[in-house]
C-alpha cells in the first residue's frame, strides 16, 4: 500500500508550475499586500463614513484574493483532484452563513441596547478620560 501511494505522488510531482509559478505568485501577493496596506493607511486621512466603508469593502476583496493565491498555489490545492478540492472547500462555505448570521445578530443586539438601555448609550458616548498614571 505504501508503495502504491508513493508511486502516485511521484507521478504527481511535476503538476505544479515550478519555480516560475512560485515567483509569479510571490509578486502577486506582494502587490496585493502593498495595495491593501495603502488603502488601510489612506483611512488615516479620510473622515467620510461612506468612503471608509467602501475602502473596507475593497480591502476585504483583496484579502480574499490573497487567501485564494496562498491556498491555490502555495498549498497546491489547485493542482489536486477536483473531488479532494470539494471536500475541503464545500465545508468552508458554512462561513458564508456564519458571517451573515452572526454579524446581523451583533448589529441587532447593539440596536436593542441603544434603544432600551439608557445607561449603555450614555456611557458609551462619554469622551474617554486618559489614564496617565496607569502603567
Amino acid at each position, binding site marked *: 500500500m505504501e508503495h502504491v501511494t508513493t508511486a502516485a505522488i511521484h507521478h504527481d510531482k511535476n503538476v505544479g508550475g515550478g519555480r516560475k509559478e512560485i515567483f509569479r505568485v510571490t509578486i502577486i501577493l506582494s502587490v496585493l499586500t502593498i495595495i491593501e496596506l495603502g488603502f488601510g493607511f489612506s483611512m488615516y486621512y479620510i473622515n467620510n463614513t461612506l468612503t471608509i466603508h467602501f475602502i473596507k469593502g475593497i480591502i476585504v476583496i483583496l484579502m480574499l484574493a490573497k487567501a485564494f493565491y496562498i491556498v491555490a498555489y502555495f498549498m497546491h490545492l489547485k493542482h489536486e*483532484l477536483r473531488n479532494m478540492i470539494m471536500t475541503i472547500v464545500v465545508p468552508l462555505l458554512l462561513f458564508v452563513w456564519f458571517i451573515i448570521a452572526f454579524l446581523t445578530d451583533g448589529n441587532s443586539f447593539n440596536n436593542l441596547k441603544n434603544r432600551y438601555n439608557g445607561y449603555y448609550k450614555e456611557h458609551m458616548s462619554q469622551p*474617554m478620560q486618559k489614564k496617565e498614571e496607569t502603567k
Partner: protein
Amino acid sequence: MATTTATTATKYWSGGRSPFNVEYGKLMMWYFLMSDAFTFGAFLISYGTTRFATNGWPNPNHVFNAFPGIQGNLPLLFLSLMTFILILSSVTMVLAVHEGHNMNKSGVAKYLALTILGGLAFLGCQAWEWTHLHHEGAWWGSNPFPNADGSTSTTNFTNFFFTITGFHGFHVFSGVIINIIMLIMTLKNKFEQRGHYLIIEKAGLYWHFVDLVWVFVFTCFYLL
C-alpha cells in the same frame, strides 16, 4: 495496479490507490487545517459580532503607530514589516517543498533554515509589539485607547487583539518547532533513506496555513 484499463480516464475509485491521489498523511493534514480554520473563524466571527454590537471602536491607525528605534507617528509601518516577513517565509517554504520533490537535500536544508529564520523574526516582531502595547497600558482587561470619535471604548478591543494574535503567534511558534524538527531530520539524512521528502510537504501545508490565517487576522485587526 488497476490504473488504466480499456478507458482512457484513470479509475481513482476502483481500489488499489488513493482516490484523491494524495497520501493519507497529506489528506489528514488538510482536514486538520480545515478544522483549525473553523477555530480561527470562530474567533474572528466572535470578534466581528462583538464589534457590531458596540457603538464605536478604536482606530487601528491610531493604536498601531510605533516602530522600534524610530520616534514619531508611523501607522501600519511595523505591521507591513511583519506581513512581509511572513509572506517571504512562506515563499521559502514553497521553495523547500520544491527542492524536496527534486530530492535536493542541500536545497531543502537551505530553504528550511531560511523559513525558520523568517518565523523567528516574525515572533520577535510580535514580542516587541506586545511589549510596546503593554507599556502603553493595553492588556487583557485594560484598554487605554479611545474610540475613533474619542468616546469611551470597551476592553473588548484589547481582549480580542491579544487573544487572537496570541493564538496565531502560538501557531507560528509550533510551526517553527515543526520546521526545526524537519531541518534536523533532513540533515540526518532521514528523508534520503526514506526515498522521498513528502513530510516536508505536510509541514509546508501547516506553515502556509499560518501565513493564510495572518492574512485574515491582520486585515481584521489592523486595517478594518
